[in-house]
């Protein structure tokens, strides 16, 4: 109803009301009549569509006079903003002053000039529209903030997000009913709704809607643009006649929820009377559709991240998987320097075995081996950097700090060696002769993302890595070779034998190394 205006004419004189309403009609203004102030306040306090824009008020009236009425309007929070033009035959300046003091917008004396009456009403309408716009803007802004707040605080709860969006959208565009339909493999189903609910509606929900001219949701699915049916009763293509009869809606609006060009759903708003949604209401619902899209995407992203984390942890060490999704992950991945214990292990005789074995045998051996060793790595909190065939590199003290990193590494290696004995026994029966060797070194390494776009590893680079790798190469089957520093860190818990100084490829000087014989029995705790 923008453009026109609705005037409440308050006058006890029937002749004057007749003249006023007719003058207003000829100026393109609609009007409602009240014969006194009391009745006027009743009308103003009813919720009506369209709302009253201006009050034309007589001063001398029975029941409740103009002064009292004016005071009541200005004392009512919900009516205060309404422009009131006082018209009276009381020509005294005194009454005009009193009316202005009480908050009247304007004052006209009888006889009035119709053109001036019209001009003053139009001026008041402009004021009223500005006020309404400001109020509407604030109302919408507040509601949008509330929705954003819900979206940002309920990222895991799609139901709450959608319920808030649809409730707020319907309320702000004065629709009795609202719903959000989400696309699921070609069908649209209700994910949230406000307003009345009937068995028929429930049945329709369960069935879902398909793209087509028969429903608003279907039309939005076809056009991917806002669609309005001003009156479903006069729309030839509209098919939900039985549902309409029960629910009683007349004007329908559907707005697409889209993300990156994909239609993910539709917001529907319905009125129980025929009143087209205005351009600004359609824009408003579109803004809510955008919020819904963000909310849906957030929730789906959280779900995806959860799933990816789960997937990743099956491939990566759980530490790296959780690092990737942690807030400080990016910083950690960018690279940092830290002391670490690096462990290399591989199978002796594997190359020869792989050349002669059938693929099924080969993968069977690797599966058993990775399975057994993998669980020990996890158990001791190691980070598996990579495994290539039979070789594995594991480090400790990163990304999660472990003050006892060297001890953990050695305990893991000893446990692996023990487990390997069992595996080797089984393999030997099948005719496979395989051994197991380990190299362990302690030192500073640069840790972080290594590789190239598309294929990155979380890795450790430094002399310590090279040293551990070389020690592993030198290890005889069943040996766990420690660097000097690694031994120094664990000498309290291991029995080790020196294997002499080894000349290792890539290292300028021979390095001393020790083989772990066994873990020391735990010292009995002295009785107190």
């Amino acid at each position, binding site marked *: 109803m923008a453009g026109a205006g609705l005037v409440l004419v308050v006058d*006890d*004189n*029937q*002749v*004057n009301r*007749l*003249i006023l309403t*007719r*003058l207003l*009609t*000829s100026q393109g203004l609609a009007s409602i009549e009240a014969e006194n102030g009391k009745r006027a306040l009743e009308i103003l306090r009813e919720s009506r569509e369209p709302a009253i824009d201006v009050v034309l008020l007589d001063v*001398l009236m*029975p029941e409740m006079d103009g002064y009292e009425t004016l005071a009541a309007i200005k004392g009512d929070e919900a009516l205060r903003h309404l422009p009131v033009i006082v018209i009276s*035959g009381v020509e005294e300046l005194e009454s005009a002053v009193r009316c202005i003091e009480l908050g009247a917008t304007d004052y006209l004396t*009888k*006889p009035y000039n*119709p*053109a001036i009456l019209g001009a003053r009403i139009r001026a008041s309408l402009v004021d009223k529209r500005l006020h309404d716009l400001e109020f509407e803007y604030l109302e919408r802004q507040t509601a949008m903030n509330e929705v954003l707040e819900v979206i940002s605080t309920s990222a895991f709860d799609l139901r709450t997000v959608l319920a808030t969006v649809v409730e707020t959208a319907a309320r702000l565009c004065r629709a009795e009913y609202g719903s959000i339909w989400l696309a699921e493999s070609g069908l649209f189903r209700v994910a949230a709704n406000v307003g009345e609910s009937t068995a028929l509606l429930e049945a329709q929900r369960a069935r879902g809607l398909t793209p087509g001219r028969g429903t608003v949701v279907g039309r939005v699915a076809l056009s991917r643009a806002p669609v309005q049916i001003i009156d479903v009763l006069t729309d030839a293509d509209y098919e939900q006649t039985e549902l309409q009869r029960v629910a009683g809606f007349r004007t329908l609006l559907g707005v697409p929820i889209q993300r990156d060009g994909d239609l993910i759903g539709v917001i529907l708003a319905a009125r129980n009377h025929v009143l087209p949604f205005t351009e600004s209401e359609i824009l408003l619902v579109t803004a809510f559709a955008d919020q819904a899209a963000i909310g849906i995407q957030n929730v789906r992203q959280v779900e995806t991240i959860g799933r990816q984390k789960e997937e990743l942890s099956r491939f990566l060490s759980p530490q790296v998987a959780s690092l990737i999704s942690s807030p400080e992950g990016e910083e950690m991945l960018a690279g940092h320097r830290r002391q670490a214990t690096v462990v290399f292990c591989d199978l002796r005789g594997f190359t020869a075995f792989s050349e002669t074995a059938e693929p099924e045998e080969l993968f069977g051996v690797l599966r058993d081996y990775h399975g057994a060793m993998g669980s020990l790595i996890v158990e001791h909190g190691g980070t598996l950097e990579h495994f290539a065939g039979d070789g594995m590199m594991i480090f400790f003290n990163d990304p999660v700090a472990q003050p006892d990193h060297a001890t953990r590494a050695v305990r893991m290696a000893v446990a692996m060696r023990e487990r390997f004995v069992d595996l080797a026994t089984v393999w030997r029966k099948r005719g496979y002769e395989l051994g197991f060797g380990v190299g362990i070194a302690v030192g500073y390494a640069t840790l972080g993302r290594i590789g190239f776009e598309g294929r990155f590893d979380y890795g450790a680079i430094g002399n310590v890595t090279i040293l551990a790798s070389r020690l592993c190469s030198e290890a005889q089957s069943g040996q766990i070779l420690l660097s000097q520093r690694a031994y120094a860190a664990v000498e309290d818990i291991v029995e080790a034998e020196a294997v002499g100084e080894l000349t290792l490829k890539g290292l300028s000087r021979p390095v001393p190394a020790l083989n772990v014989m066994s873990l020391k029995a735990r010292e009995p705790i002295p009785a107190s």
Partner: protein
Amino acid sequence: MTGSDLPTFDSAVLQELRASVGGDDGFISELIATYRVDGAAQVDSIEAAIAAGDPAALVRPAHTMKSSSASVGAQRLSEMCRGLELDARSGLIADGEARLAALRAEWSEVGEALDRFAAGMAD
């Protein structure tokens, strides 16, 4: 001011109103009819108040009649009612019987003038 120098019916008031509503004769006829029905009731109320010597009861009908009469161009009648309203508010109605008789006579003349105006409009 007694109102004797004012015209009984100033046709310019209704002519202007008619022009303001796009020459809607139907509306002017409806307005005249409404005024005559409502006016008769107001004149009766004025008579009853004067007969009862009740100034408080006179204020409203005199006020209403003053206003609607002015709206249709019945200037002298409006002025007579204005005088009655003012006196009624002060609580004293002098020459009540005589003024009532004059009011009745004026109301009848206004009626004839409005009939003539309506007839002229129909031509």
